[in-house]
Every structure is written in structure tokens, then in C-alpha cells.
């Protein structure tokens, strides 16, 4: 077996097993840590697939940002961070969920294995080029993809202001409530 293949399977296992952990764990803090492992695995896969910038972004945004946010969220909102998902819905049979997920899995595997994917990019010849992608990405964002890039900035501005509005306590509300 080639070295690359071994690394790929190792990373795949490191992604999928923690993903099961995310699903099964009852305690939301544990869920967050399983998520950490799973997201790191994805970052590794990105880097293996020659997308180094995406891999680093994955670490920065998902692990450094979103995961920390989740942990802060747990810390701020619950006095007892250990038990959150306390209500087990015993009435619902696990088999229905199993059946649905197996069917979805089957359909998706059919699609994934039965499709000749269009791989005209770097991996088509089976070799990793090993060149950094940050520079071409940056150039593409300011030329070909300048519109989505700029639109995202407007979107973020709107969402940021909106989130601040939702989170803040308005003077008028306090007055009407007092």
C-alpha cells in the first residue's frame, strides 16, 4: 500500500469515528470535543487533497472559532454543563432512524460510487503537486470571484449588525418593561 493511501485511511477513520461520537454522546461538552477530533480530521483530509489553504481555514474557523464558541455558549448558558440532553425520548424507536439513515447512506453511496466524477484538477494524474494554493486563491478572489467575495462582506455586515441588535437590550424595551 502506498504511503498516501495509508494516510488517507488514517485520516478518514479519524474523521468518521469521532463523528459517531458526536452523534452518540449525551453530554454536550463531550460532543464538542468529539467535534474537535472530527473537524481536525477533515482539515487533514483537505491538506492531503492539496487544499492547504482550505485546511488551515478549517482549523481557524471551525476549530478556533465555532468550537470555542460552542464551549463558551455552554459555559455561559448552563450552570451545570455536564447534563444537557436529559430528555431521552424512549417512545421513538431507534430503528426508524436507523432505517432512514441506512437508506440515505445507500442512495448516497450509489451516487458516489456510480458516478464518474469530473476530476480535471490537480489529483487527476494521481500526484500531489505540493504547491501552496493561497496565492492563486487570493488572485481569483479579486478577479474572477470578486463579486461573491464582496457580497460576502456586505452579508457579514448585515448579519453582524442584526446579531448585535438581537442580542442587545434596547432602552425602549427596558422602559416599556419597567
Amino acid at each position: 500500500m502506498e504511503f498516501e493511501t495509508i494516510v488517507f485511511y488514517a485520516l478518514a477513520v479519524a474523521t468518521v469515528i469521532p463523528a459517531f461520537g458526536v452523534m452518540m454522546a449525551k453530554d454536550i461538552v463531550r460532543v464538542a470535543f468529539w467535534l474537535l477530533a472530527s473537524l481536525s480530521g477533515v482539515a487533514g483530509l483537505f491538506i492531503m487533497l492539496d487544499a492547504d489553504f482550505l485546511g488551515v481555514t478549517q482549523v481557524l474557523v471551525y476549530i478556533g472559532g465555532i468550537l470555542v464558541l460552542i464551549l463558551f455558549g455552554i459555559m455561559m448558558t448552563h450552570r451545570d454543563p455536564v447534563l444537557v440532553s436529559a430528555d431521552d425520548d424512549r417512545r421513538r424507536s431507534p430503528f426508524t432512524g436507523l432505517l432512514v439513515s441506512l437508506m440515505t447512506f445507500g442512495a448516497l453511496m450509489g451516487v458516489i460510487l456510480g458516478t464518474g466524477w469530473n476530476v480535471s484538477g490537480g489529483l487527476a494524474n494521481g500526484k500531489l503537486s505540493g504547491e501552496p494554493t493561497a496565492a492563486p486563491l487570493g488572485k481569483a478572489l479579486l478577479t474572477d470571484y470578486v463579486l461573491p467575495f464582496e457580497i460576502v462582506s456586505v452579508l457579514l455586515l448585515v448579519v453582524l449588525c442584526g446579531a448585535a441588535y438581537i442580542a442587545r437590550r434596547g432602552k425602549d424595551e427596558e422602559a416599556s418593561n419597567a
Partner: protein
Amino acid sequence: MMDAAYFTRARELIGESMGGFAPELVLSLLVIVLLMHDLFTRGARPERAAAIAGIGLVICGALLWMQSTEPPTAGHLEGSHEIFGWLTGDGNHMGMLAIDAFAKFFKAFVLLGTLVTIPMCLVHPAFANRRMGEFYALLVAATLGMFLMASATNLLMVYMGIEFASMASYLAVAFVKRDRKGSEAGLKYVIYGSVASGIMIYGLSLIYGMTGSLHISDLANADVTGAQGSALAVAGVLAFAGFAYKMAAFPMHFWCPDVYEGSPVPFTAYLSVTSKAAGFAVFIRFMMGFGDGALTVGEGDGAYSVAFGWQGLVAGAAALSMTVGNLAALWQTNLKRLLAYSSIAHAGYLLMGVAAFSEGGGAEQYAPVLFYFVAYFFMNLGAFFVVTLVAARTGSEDIAGYRGLITRAPFLCVCLVFCLVSLLGIPPTMGFIGKLELFKLVIDRGLVWLAVVAGINTAVSAYYYFKIVKAMCLDAAEDEAPVRVHASSMALVGLLSLPILIFGILPGHLYEFTRQFGLF
């Protein structure tokens, strides 16, 4: 690739594109101006924020009106006018946004819907005496997202347009704080929306994996080596989830009643009309990108074409949307919820028209759907405007609160009756003509069973539309006090209801007018 000549060309292309992007640019600036307005204003000045928003939208409308759909320089952008993006080696322009008649129609539609929403906000009691700059900023941002949806020719822009419109809408729905229903509606909207958008982007990524291109026109003519029809169907169904969510069509309609009920009435009216239109615009463009569903698979002698049955999928979604919407509406007593289910049913009627589209169908096939959208604009906004006004005066959104409205507010009552009759689709209203044309189109294209389903549904819907009419006109009022409404509001309600009657009797010119806005 990344040489100096490339950058020069890219810069030229961006410069050329700015002209076509002017209306969106005005909207982006308007968002910032509205946010700034609250920053530099002492106290609540809702009227001034509304005026700024209104002026900005009118400027945007003027730019949209003057915008030419012709390509600026011959040869550079082939045939269709697309902006941004890049030029491929053989001179094709892989644009991000299309500036065509179809996009123009839906942009004007969304813009007018936003303009009508502003006076509704002014009479909404929860919006009185508070800082409204942020709300109008969100409203304009949602409009900007819908503009992008109407024009998007690149799957990346399709997704971003939908997300842009959704994000702004989530926030606007939950705008009134300490309102339990509003916050709940906002949360539900976010959760359902995230699920829908997650499913959609998974489908889009599968499509990208098969075609290797994000441009919509490549959906039809890419060489998909070894792909199977089933793979494309799975990807298409997954992508449809996101579009159905914006259209509030089956199977992604769950959010609709709760969000319509919980959000401020003016925003409900806005969502029910503009969001649906933008959803249809982006979906029609996406669907027509597939052509008649024939992708060539394999090479040489082994090549075969894969048909992807959009028609079956869309027709099924149409039939289920109208049935689910109408049956659920029968039991509603809250007028906002009732109109929500009615809007799900209308998504079904409109999808019925879309199911009849075919690649070579020409401009003819778009006219019934576009005409029905114009009808839907007047009747739905009219109905919601009356609901806003009555709720502002009586505080009731329940059908019981509408008893004897004919004596309390005769003018509003008559206008609402027009809107409801038109929503039901009986003559002499615009809704009737619109439905007639939709039925004609569907039967023409051989989908008789769908027309039968729609016919039965129309009959069923008569029950709940007439339930409201009966309560308003025949039942005795509990409170005889007249519902007083400012003359300008009355004028606007009249302005929304009058076209229903005029174009119901003389639809010819308008129908011809909508014909030029088809997708070619």
C-alpha cells in the same frame, strides 16, 4: 494564467460589469445609510428612516428601469448579458449574474413589493415610536439578496443569493423583541432554513462534482463521463430542497405557517410575495439550465443521454403543495396562518406552470407564470395590508375579529373581498385569468392530471376563502365601533385592489407585457 494581461482583462471586465450592477450597488449603499441613520439620530424617527429607505428604493428602481439588457460591447459577452466572472479561452463569458428581461421582471417585482411594505411598517403598532433604521436595513438587505437570486447564473451566486435573503429575513422576523411568538418564529426559520440550505449545498456540490463547472449553462452541455441518471436525480432532488424552501413549497413548507404567524405582519406580507418570487426566479433559471434534461454521458459510440425528470419532480411537488396547503388551511382561524397555508397552495399553482416548461417552449410558456405572479402581488399584498390595518386597530388577527367588518370598515372589507375572490380565482378578477392561463398551459403540455388536481384544490379552497367573506359580510359584529383608518392607507389598499378588477376584466395588455420577460 495569472499574468499581467490576465489582470488587465479582469479589471476591464469588472469595470464593464459595474454598469449592470448599479441597482444592487444602490441597495448595498442604502443598507449602510440606514444603519448609519440610527447611529446619528436622537430618539425614534421611524418616518425618516422609512423615507430614506423609500427614496433609496426609488433610485434603485430608476436605475433598474434604465438598465439595458443588451450586452455593452459586441463579441465580449456573447448573446446574453452577464456580468462579473471571467472569459474563457474561447471567448465565452462565464458570468456571475445575468442582466436579462427575466431578471429585470423579478427584480422590479421584489422592489415594488419592498416599496409597498414600507407604508405597512408605518401603520404597524409594534413599529411605532422606535428606531426603525435597522429594520429597514434588514428589509433592504433581504431585497438585495433577492436581486442576486433573480440574476444568479453561477451556482455559487445562487447559494449566496439565497443565503443573503434568508439571513436578513431571519433577523427581521425576530425583530420585535420580547415577543415570544416572534422569537420562536425567528428560531424556527433559522433552523429549518439551515437544514434546507445544508441539503441544497450538498446537492449542488454533487452537481459540481459531475459537471466540473459552477455555471448554470454548463448544467446542460457538460460532458459527464460515466454519470448515471440516478446520481443526477439525487443531486437535483437535494438541490430542490433549498429552492422549495424559498418558494414555501412542499416538502419544505413546514416553516411557513409559524413564521408567517410570528413575524410582524408587514414583514409577513413582504416574505409571502417577494421571497416566493425570488425563489421561483432562481429555480426556473436553474431548472432551465438543465435543458430538457439530457446530459450526454460517455464518449464516442458508448455515449448515451441521461434524462433528468424535472417535470415529474416539479409536478409532484406542485400537486402536493396545493393539496397540503389547501387542506391545512381549512381548519385555520388565524388569518395570518390561513394566508400562510394559502400561500403554500399558491406555490403549488405556480409550480404547476413551471412543471409545464420545456426547453423549446419559447416566451409563451413563461407568460402564464409571470402573469400569475403579478396577480399574486396585488391580491396577497392587498389582503395582508387590510390584515395589518385591521390588526392595528382591533388587535385581532382572528377570523372572529372580522365579523361584521362590512359595517365597521366598508371600504377595507370590499377590498379584502376582492383580494380573497381573486386568490380563490373566480371571475371577474385577475386571479381567475391567471389561473385560466396556467390551466391552459398545463393542459397544452399534456399534464391533464395536474390540472384536475388543481381544479379540485380550487374548489376546496373556496370553503376557507368564503369563510372569511361570510364572517365579514353576513355575521353580526360584536363591536360596532367603526375601524378608522388614515386616508392614505385606504388609498394604498384601493391602489392594490383596483388592478385586480381592472386586469381581471381587461387582461390583454398586461398579458402581452409579461410575455417579453421570458427566459430565452
